[in-house]
């Protein structure tokens, strides 16, 4: 993880994996550094400084990471800092399943009006609210029954991306394969989408590329554990 430092250029090749606000730190630090130790020491000093520049009681911390597979089953759960209630593994399983269902429902209660139709092909023309109650609704409309509206395609709606409560914020990132990454952080934590994408990158590197990992199964990969802990746990 530690790569050679570019001296004299003012930009860094890498920074300690646990520096969550390293992007901001990058702009602060410049100049040449003689040794890695000096860099680490000064970076942590600047990290503390930047954290304390906020309000004295605001602590930006990541509480937990949950990974849910395509079917809604929990495949990874890890808490990094206290702040959430202690739940046992069964409760986490139920929570993951509940969230999976709510995520699907939140896609269908989209109240937004559809975007104005484009001129010629009108491929975006579709109804805004998608039907989610197949029992009481009519079967899908026959295509090309009306002029100027060849097919009715449902808009590509996304589910819950972020949930705010008074004690925590939940960021949900859904990969194109349907795997959901839930990140529980304190409400003041900035850049949660960057953090969750970094976790997704680590998932791709350490879990997906592991030849012994079977898909959709609980993740028991030590490198992933160490990588995620190094990135998300503040010293």
């Amino acid at each position: 993880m530690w790569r050679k430092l570019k001296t004299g250029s003012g930009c860094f090749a890498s920074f300690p994996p646990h520096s969550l606000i390293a992007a901001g730190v990058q702009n602060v630090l410049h100049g040449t550094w003689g040794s890695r130790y000096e860099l680490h020491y000064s970076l942590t000093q600047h990290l503390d400084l930047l954290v304390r520049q906020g309000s004295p009681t605001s602590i930006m911390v990541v509480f937990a990471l949950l990974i849910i597979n395509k079917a809604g089953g929990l495949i990874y759960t890890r808490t990094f800092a206290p702040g959430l209630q202690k739940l046992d593994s069964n409760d986490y399983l139920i929570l993951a399943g509940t969230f999976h269902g709510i995520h699907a429902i939140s896609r269908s209660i989209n109240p937004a009006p559809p975007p104005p139709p484009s001129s010629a092909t009108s491929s975006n023309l579709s109804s805004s609210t998608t039907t989610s109650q197949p029992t009481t609704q009519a079967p899908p409309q026959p295509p090309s029954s009306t002029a100027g509206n060849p097919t009715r395609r449902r808009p590509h709606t996304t589910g819950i991306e972020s949930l705010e409560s008074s004690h925590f914020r939940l960021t949900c990132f859904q990969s194109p394969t349907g795997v959901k990454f839930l990140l529980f952080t304190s409400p003041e934590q900035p850049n949660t989408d960057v953090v969750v994408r970094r976790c997704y990158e680590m998932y791709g590197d350490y879990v997906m590329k592991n030849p012994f990992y079977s898909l959709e199964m609980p993740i028991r990969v030590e490198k992933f554990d160490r990588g995620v802990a190094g990135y998300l746990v503040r010293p």
Partner: protein
Amino acid sequence: MSVYSFYIFDRHTECIYSRRFTQQPSPPRTTSSTLRNGTTVPPSLRQANKDSDDAKLVFGTVFSLRRMCRQLGGVDDQFLSYRTAEYKLHYLETPTQLRLVLLTSPQVGNMRTVLHQIWATLFVEYVVKSPLAPTEHTGGKGVGNELFEVGLERFMEAVFRPQQQQQQ
């Protein structure tokens, strides 16, 4: 910066008020669709069914999320809002377990004070204090009176229109 819809649920988990602020596109059908057993459903009834189904979905979502937040954050944790790429849902629960839900565009900020004001200056004034409204609004009885509706419309105009005017 626009508001899409607004719901009020009472403590008996019933939707007592729902209001849409955007025009839902009525599907351009020439014939009314048929159910599986061959009976036809008129479009107005179907739209009413869809509205009530939407309200039930919203309530179910909000109820489950609130329970989840209580489980994770402790008993005093309050679910505030959630955001998707298409809309943002804001939630306020009063001490009488009256639930106000507002769906807006995703860029909108914290609407908690707006919801609180709707409750305090519109609902309490025009519904609770109305001598003609019953104490239990089963089926929405007593909530949709004219003062409340007009007041809500004006309030939403005041909150959401000035941003558009400022941008112009």
